[in-house]
């Protein structure tokens, strides 16, 4: 029973991690840059939602889309200011920019919202699942469910719409895309907006487990083992990677930590990552490059 409980909680939180990973992966595919400011995007998304839901008292069903749109707009604005001038330059410089961005955004959030925690509890219809001894609390079920829905929407957008085709084309080569009239800069803007929205959903869900402060963003670092295990450029890999990291954490949390290794839960995903990278350097689902012989 205990085992099933552990697996279930691991999978639920894994969905949220998967969504975080997706936010990284779509940016990486579009520009080959790694967004290290993911934690700060999470916090900003959560605070925007907080404003709509707790300050303005907009009902949840409206507050979430509004918060996401605002988060997307902020993401797009950040792209315009910091990433766009680097179009055509090395992806490494974009990656380094995001490192700086992380500090700037974290301090800005601290400046605006202060360093204290905000209590964060969304009253949602009770969705807790209970079978005998096994209990999945409502907010966890909501988190997993909403993450899966968001994930599905993003996949639909990328694989079934005209913008999705353009995004995938631009991911492959910005110059080819430009030559066929796809405005690569607008596509990058869209991708950053989309990524900020994914991360914001995950951020709101994670904040809902406890409280929100400018340090909540540290949870965003979970995305690193997620995307590296799943494969940096694989969308499906992000989900699988998320589930694996979630499971790993849950299993370690309930079976290894009681042995006296307190805090090992946070390290375990990285150890797993190390093993995966030894065996498959591109991650489990990293694209096998098409090669012409």
């Amino acid at each position, binding site marked *: 029973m205990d085992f099933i409980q552990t697996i279930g909680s691991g999978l639920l939180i894994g969905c949220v991690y998967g969504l975080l990973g997706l936010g990284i992966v779509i940016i990486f595919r579009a520009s080959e840059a790694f967004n290290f400011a993911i934690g700060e995007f999470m916090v900003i998304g959560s605070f925007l939602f907080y404003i709509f839901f707790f300050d303005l008292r907009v009902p949840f069903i409206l507050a979430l889309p509004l918060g996401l749109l605002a988060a997307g707009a902020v993401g797009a604005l950040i792209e315009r200011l910091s990433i766009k001038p680097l179009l055509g330059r090395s992806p490494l410089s974009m990656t380094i920019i995001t490192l700086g961005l992380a500090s700037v955004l974290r301090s800005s959030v601290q400046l605006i919202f202060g360093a204290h925690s905000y209590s964060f509890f969304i009253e949602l219809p009770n969705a807790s699942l209970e079978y005998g001894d096994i209990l999945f609390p409502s907010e966890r079920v909501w988190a997993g469910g909403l993450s899966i829905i968001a994930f599905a929407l993003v996949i639909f957008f990328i694989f079934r719409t*005209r913008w999705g*085709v353009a995004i995938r084309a631009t991911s*492959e080569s*910005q*110059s*080819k895309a*430009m*030559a066929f*009239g796809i405005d690569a800069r607008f596509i990058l803007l869209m991708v950053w907006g989309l990524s900020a929205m994914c991360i914001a959903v995950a951020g709101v869900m994670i904040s809902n487990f406890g409280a929100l402060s400018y340090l909540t963003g540290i949870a965003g670092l979970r995305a690193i083992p997620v995307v590296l295990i799943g494969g940096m450029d694989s969308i499906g890999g992000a989900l699988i990677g998320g589930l694996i990291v979630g499971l790993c954490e849950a299993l370690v949390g309930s079976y290894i930590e009681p042995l006296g290794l307190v805090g090992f839960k946070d390290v375990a995903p990285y150890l797993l990552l190390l093993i995966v990278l030894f065996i498959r350097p591109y991650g489990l689902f990293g694209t096998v490059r*098409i090669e012409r012989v």
Partner: protein
Amino acid sequence: MLSIENLRVVYHDVISILNGISLKAASGEISVIIGANGAGKTTLLRAISGMLRMFDGNIIEGDIKVGDFSLKGLDSTDIIKKFGLTYVMEDRPVFWYLTIEENLAAAAYSRWDRTVKADMEKVFDYFPVLNKLRQQKAGYTSGGEQQMLAIGMSLMTQPKILLFDEPSLGLAPLITEELFRIIERLNREGMTIVLVEQNAHAALQIGHRGCVLENGRVVLEGQAAALLENEDVREFYLGAGAKERKSYQDAKRYKRRKRWL
């Protein structure tokens, strides 16, 4: 009429590639540009199509005009939309991880009209080979198929002027021949074409006018047929020089003559 006036292009602010090129490509004609590696052919096409900035290049002097309108400073996306001028990059610019159909859809991204589907079928009419491969990832198709797809993609942008950058690169002679027939057909149907080629013989045969680039300058210009007969062009680009062995003295003369002007 596409005209280039005294164009100078510099990469990374220091490397001068085009040193004052002037050219005209008349509407409805095939203009062939030949030249050795590094002569500036690709840079010229990038400059015309607004792709220079992607490669950190800059037009520092001169102008490019379609009719009376200057293309200078415009982006490739604007140039495609406003002037119907599309650049088919060298080395088969298809998206490897998209299917053939998605490739065509991606190339039609800038369009919102309802004829996209019909145009796609038209491309499949042009290139029956592609029809069987609709759902295939472009990366797994052959070089000839990729080049045809690239041309098909350029047609999806509804072009009036097409710039081809070495379409025959790395293709078998038979496929090259077929491609050139397609280019000729596009031209007969009213398309203005600028064709950059290493395969000078084949290109000059279908072309109306031609010019030779060297070190970022136009060194020779004329009717394609006349260029085919030109002794220097024959020697340097068509490989039809004297067959007997040359002495060192002649080799020096070769160098001297290759300076043209």
